[in-house]
């Protein structure tokens, strides 16, 4: 890794194709994983070989019920674990082989909110996203401050920079956490159940913002979720998981088949096609003649 390579910015020229075709960012190729309590013991959870690609400006939803392997797949993509077989590559480099600093310059991960031990100002929190670019004690440079400002502005939260994290609402906090991810100037943004603690309005706002940011900054965005309706409305591609196996990869219209989803999510539902060609999912209560 040459030193100049590590300073590449998201807005820099990185494989722009002249004819407007989308550059492939993320390539997950037959990646599998197995958790074992001990080295010799039989694995307690396995993720069978999974393949999909994510291009720049694309939003991919990893969809599945609890314990379907969503989080494992996310950890494989983020490079914190290495696949047992297969490869996970970002722009042609295996994510698990990057050193932590380089990885943090290329991949931003947004988790479900974690408890804050000491109060921090939202502005300082966003500046943490500049950590992988700084040296030693990481006092913020003018450039860092400008980038953090822009990141806050991009999520419509510039007015929050002087507030402490603890006093923000769920939606505001989620925006500040997203701004920190933007300040990392990554190529790939991973989000783990980002809508879990948000009300409906904030959920829709977040996903619309993610789509827009992916367009503007040429990120690839991968969202882990179990929200069928949101994925249908906002994802370009859906990866459907169940019991550690990848069942389907494709556009929402191709993946959303009523019988398949009913079987995966163990809930009776209908799928219809909305005006924009995107599927709509309606839950049905089990009552009367529908039961069993």
């Amino acid at each position, binding site marked *: 890794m040459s030193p100049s390579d590590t300073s590449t910015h998201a807005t820099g020229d990185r494989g722009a194709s002249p004819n407007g075709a989308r550059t492939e960012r993320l390539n997950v190729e037959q990646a599998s994983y197995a958790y074992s309590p001990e080295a010799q013991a039989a694995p307690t959870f396995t993720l069978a070989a999974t393949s999909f690609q994510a291009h720049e400006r694309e939003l991919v939803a990893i969809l599945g019920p609890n314990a379907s392997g969503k989080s494992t797949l996310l950890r494989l993509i983020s490079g914190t674990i290495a696949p047992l077989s297969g490869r996970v590559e970002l722009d042609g480099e295996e994510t698990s082989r990057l050193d*932590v600093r380089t990885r943090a310059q290329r991949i931003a*991960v947004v*988790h479900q909110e974690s408890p804050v031990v000491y109060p921090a100002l939202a502005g300082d929190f966003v500046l943490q996203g500049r*950590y*992988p670019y700084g040296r*030693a004690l990481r*006092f913020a440079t003018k450039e860092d401050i400008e980038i953090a400002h822009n990141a806050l502005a991009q999520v419509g939260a510039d007015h929050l*920079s002087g507030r402490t994290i603890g006093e923000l609402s769920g939606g505001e906090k989620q925006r500040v956490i997203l701004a920190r991810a933007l300040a990392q100037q990554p190529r790939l943004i991973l989000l783990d159940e980002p809508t879990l603690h948000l009300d409906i309005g904030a959920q829709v706002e977040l996903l619309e913002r993610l789509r827009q940011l992916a367009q503007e900054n040429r990120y690839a965005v991968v969202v882990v979720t179990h929200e069928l309706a949101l994925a249908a409305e906002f994802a370009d591609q859906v990866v459907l998981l169940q019991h550690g196996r990848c069942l389907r990869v494709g556009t929402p219209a191709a993946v959303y088949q009523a019988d398949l989803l009913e079987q995966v999510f163990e809930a009776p539902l209908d799928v219809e096609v909305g005006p924009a060609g995107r599927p709509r999912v309606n839950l049905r209560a089990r009552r009367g003649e529908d039961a069993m």
Partner: protein
Amino acid sequence: MHPLTARHVLWVCAGLAAVLLACVVLALKLGAVPISVTDLLINLGRVAIGRSDQLPSEYRLIVFDLRLPRIMLGILVGAALSVSGASFQALLRNPLADPFVLGVSSGAALGAILALIFAPQLPFVTLLGAFVGAMATIAAVYFLGRRGGELDSTTLLLGGVISASFLSAIIMFLMTTLAGRDLRGAVFWMMGDLSTPVPVDLQWIFMAGLLAGIGAIYSTSADLNLLLTGEREAIHLGVEATRVKLVVYVAASLLTALAVSASGQIGYVGLLVPHAVRRIFGSDYRILIPASAFCGAIAILLADTLARTVVAPTELPVGAMTAMAGAPVFIYLLRRGMR
């Protein structure tokens, strides 16, 4: 957006150094034999320009042979305990962590006593024993505090309290059964006291250890800020979490060992001082670590001056003073955290 700058940190340190100096002058002045500030400044001036031969002999005895070594020891112990407290708070993600509360001080004291019993002839043996004792205790408390792979705040504190009382019981046992052996000064490890100055030949070791320990922790202060928001997130932001935790674990144990082998178990300083510093200067570790070092030195110096003067000529152990101030604050923080 006004992020922390290096200039701001330097100004704060300079200000606190001035306060510390004023406290040193005050501590030199106060005591069983009162000395006027003018005399003190004149004689300090004489030392500064290298005319120490002109000092009146009673000054030499009281100020330079009795009070000054004790003051230097107080500065060392206060800085070491405060910085190690702040470090344990980051390492364990727990605002109530403190070397005394977690049992690390007891572990260091036991290590020092065992070293004195089994190998009294070796150099630096109490320091070495205290260091090993501190490292072993914090490792044990860390594993006691884990529940389902995660550090649990309540379990951790309970583990620390239990370890502290267990280790103190062993110390009592050893001191009772080995009463015939030469365990000079072993008693003072129980309460925390500054009346035995560090032997002259060990002073440089202690200073070097203090600076190395604080320096090592300060070099990780940007990482500690991120580790406090969660280890997983810190790794995703580029922190080499394993290396940072190892550095802080070893350095904070060293600082606790330094303090305990020099002065015994002085409690709650590592809790009180970083907490006060957070209130005044914010919770950024890049300012918290140096400010805690200075404020810890100031706090111990003031506490010891009080301990020397409040019922003069009888002296109280400084550990009693810090515990009287610290325990109520601990309860307050605990209850606030539970709400």
